[in-house]
């Protein structure tokens, strides 16, 4: 199949952070140096850069290679043309996120930080507005009665509505990713057994991020651990807020060793420490992965950090008996957390939580399907 070239693709990449693509002379040093590329046929980052440079959009959108890279930065370090392959891989992940998204919002947010911030502010104001107009009675006596101010059943309902909506967008985007990368209709030609057998790969990579550990020499050893910690904190909060909210948001104050408090504190720390460390690293440009920061990177980290910070402040205010403070910070907390989730989950950086393990799953499916197809062909040839 002939690929039609899109002349402006490399210029479009600038919006996603791929600014040095034109410097590449296709020598392939990046691919040789990459400790991860060899597992996947040894083609990226050069192939991805090449696709962008020449405008082969069809093949770029079809490619899973960007998700195979965990950004150690070895390639950029060794690039003889300073073409920054690692950042180009990052840019291609942002680009793919915008391509999977059918609403066009992801594209809008990546191209304009102002639009992203404006959306966050509007959603935040909407959440604040809901509380201003519809909050329950504010009981100012001890113990703090948060469930009277914001009844857990209503908050839970809001949670589920939001989760349902965001899941709809995220999952439809993920479906488009599957469709694009498995070659459209061809995906129906793959036996369901193959799809089923590959499922463990998804969870393996989601919970271990093992490939990140194989990343190159310039990556600090603690990065993987910090990132894993962040994911564990994030998933903990997701479980606590979506499934266990009635158990988690109580007016009764449990002893500090109670799992409700311990788990909450763990999740808070698991969010605050890595996000804080990553913010500092981005600011000081400590690690190659943090050398270049797009607006979307800052917004994600800042919002996540603030969500965790306000969350723990709500808890502290409630436990220590400051009712008004608790209510106000609770509203602020949700006015940060909700827009963060609305923008980030289906349309921006958060989505990689799903796309990365899904990419590993799809690679596994593709390999298995290719093996089957090869076997069939060989049998046909011998018969």
């Amino acid at each position: 199949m002939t690929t039609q070239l899109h002349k402006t693709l490399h210029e479009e990449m600038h919006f996603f952070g791929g600014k040095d693509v034109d410097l590449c002379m296709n020598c392939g040093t990046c691919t040789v140096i990459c400790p991860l590329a060899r597992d996947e046929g040894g083609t990226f980052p050069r192939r991805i850069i090449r696709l962008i440079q020449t405008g082969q959009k069809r093949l770029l959108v079809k490619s899973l290679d960007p998700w195979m890279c965990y950004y150690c930065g070895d390639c950029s370090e060794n690039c003889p043309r300073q073409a920054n392959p690692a950042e180009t891989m990052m840019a291609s992940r942002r680009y793919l996120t915008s391509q999977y998204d059918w609403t066009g919002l992801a594209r809008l947010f990546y191209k304009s930080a102002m639009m992203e911030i404006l959306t966050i502010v509007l959603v935040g104001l909407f959440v604040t507005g809901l509380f201003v107009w519809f909050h329950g009675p504010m009981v100012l006596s001890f113990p703090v009665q948060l469930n009277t101010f914001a009844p857990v059943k209503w908050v839970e309902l809001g949670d589920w509505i939001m989760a349902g909506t965001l899941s709809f967008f995220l999952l439809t985007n993920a479906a488009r990713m599957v469709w694009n990368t498995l070659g459209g209709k061809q995906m129906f030609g793959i036996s369901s057994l193959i799809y089923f057998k590959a499922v463990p790969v998804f969870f393996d990579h989601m919970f271990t991020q093992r490939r990140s550990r194989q990343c190159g020499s310039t990556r600090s050893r603690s990065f993987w651990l910090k990132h894993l910690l962040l994911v564990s904190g994030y998933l903990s909060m997701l479980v606590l807020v979506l499934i266990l909210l009635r158990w988690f948001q109580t007016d009764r104050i449990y002893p500090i060793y109670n799992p409700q408090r311990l788990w909450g504190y763990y999740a808070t720390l698991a969010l605050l420490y890595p996000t804080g460390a990553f913010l500092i690293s981005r600011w000081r440009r400590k690690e190659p992965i943090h050398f270049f920061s797009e607006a979307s990177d800052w917004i994600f980290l800042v919002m996540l950090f603030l969500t965790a910070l306000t969350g723990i402040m709500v808890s502290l205010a409630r436990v220590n008996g400051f009712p008004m403070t608790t209510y106000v910070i609770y509203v602020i907390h949700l006015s940060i957390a909700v827009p963060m989730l609305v923008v980030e989950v289906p349309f921006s950086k958060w989505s990689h939580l799903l796309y990365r393990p899904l990419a590993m799953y799809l690679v596994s499916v593709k390999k298995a399907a290719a093996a089957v197809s090869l076997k069939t062909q060989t049998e046909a040839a011998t018969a």
Partner: protein
Amino acid sequence: MNTINNSQHDHQEPRIGVYICRCGGNISDVVDVDRVAEVSRHIPGVVVAKVHTFCCSDPGQNTISQDIQAEKLDRVVVASCSPFLHELTFRGAVQRGGLNPYLYEHANIREQGSWAHKHDPAGATAKSIRMIAAAVGKLQYSTPLDQIRLPNHRKALVIGGGVAGMKVAADLARRGIPVLLVESSGRLGGRLNQWNRVFPTDTPAGQLVTKLLAQLDANPLVEILLNCKVTAVTGFVGSFQVTIEGPLGPSGAMTSTQTTIGAIVMATGFKPYVPDDGEFLYKKDPGVVTMPEFIDLMRGQQTDTGELVYKGRTIRSVAFLHCVGSRQIDGVHTPRADGKINTYCSRVCCTTTLQQALAAKERFPSLQVYDLHQDIRTYGRGHEDYYVRAGKAGVVFFRYHGDEIPRVALADGKRPAEPSLHITFKDYLTWGEELTLDVDMLVLAVGLMAGDIPDLINMFKLPVGEDRFIQEIHPKLRPVEISVNGVLLAGTVQGPMNIEETLNAAGAAAVKASAMFLKDVVELNPYVAQVETDLCQGSGACVTQCEYDGAIVMVETQVNGKTVRQAKVNPGLCVGCGACVAVCPTRAINLNGWRLDQYDAMVDGLTADIPAVAAATS
């Protein structure tokens, strides 16, 4: 087998010295040189046989010169390396010893001995002995020879007034040699007049022409003939009779004139490859142009609009295609009318393409520029810079394979604003992916072809190579000389070269020509044919066989009061090929220095029953 027998010749017993070189082990590690010397002493006529570590060194040469005096030697053999390296060295040593330099023979026991048979020392030793025996045999029949001396007319003719011809003329005139510069067009400068700025300096081509013109104008020794052609030539090195036709003189009417010339430099240049009609849609679509056409249109562009406009169309995207008419592959490319394809690399197109692609991108930043190549051959100083800069400026590179040439088709004409050319190719920088590229313009980076000079080729008997360019004697060792003595090559008449290389070649040709004029006679090797008048029956077979016009002719001469027709050699034109010797029914022609009796003696020497050799071989 014959035994070497000195009774055949009547002159006094020769005294031959044989010198065997160890070549610092190159020879002696394989060949038993002491044994060779020992056996050589027993070859009839040999009075001295010595071994030396380096015969070519000063002590080695001195030994030879001194032995000639002390041992009263009258002939010398040195058994060492190839005569290509040191024959002249030892002729000099022999001359310094007081002998005629042609009473010397060279036996190549290194390239044809120790190096060729390094795993067979005994065989190599025996072969060395036989080669020395052959040389000794030949020497016994050698006679003193003198170089042929012919009058040398101190005037050079340069054919072609391009950059090469102008440079040769300027250089020669600066050395005080009168030059006749003949140009077939009405203007000097040649192809340079077509170009804009030239790599690697981006100097305006016109500036180079102006500088060279100034040098020519300043020197009264340069005579420039425009609109003129060389139509006939006779004679030989030192005195060519050249006929030039053109509007000579003040009347401007076509006249012809004859002049005598000592040396001739061919600087007739090249012609750009012209694609066949329809090759890459050339001449079928106005968007397909050759590199010279593109350079021309770029020169005429206004930059202030910021848009490249050609034939009323705004060009938004342009692709450059390398290797059009170069590096062609048998079975892939259509041969030209002569049945040949251009397998060679034209050398200049890669850098020209990058230079033009970069210039286009710099002058029109919104222009999309693509480069389709097999390889990027930016081999010269400063050339790679264009590649780096073009890449950084946003020129996008694709790499195709030579046997899968990009295909060009017209895109459908429904949307006139859309690009009209549809290029499909496999890109090997993207793992052989088949891609299509729609562009407004396709520039064919055409290669260089040999110029159309059939008349000159016939007139001068110029040696033409497989690639149709004129071929030098040796690409490394004699790069500007050809097999026609007194005729030199300058520039792209010889093959694809860029301007720097052309000027280098022109400079070299000028130096070679100047060296010919250092003496007022031309000295030639004495190895030319000689007719034995008492044997010649006038069959004329030699004249029919001779490839060199006028080298051997039939003349009327008086023998014993009777007028007979006999062959006569013109030593200036004879190249000593020996074709006449082979066809003479009466063995009346011999080649000086390589006479038939000398061959006989060499064969005798090679096959002689030398007892010591037999012992060495067994």
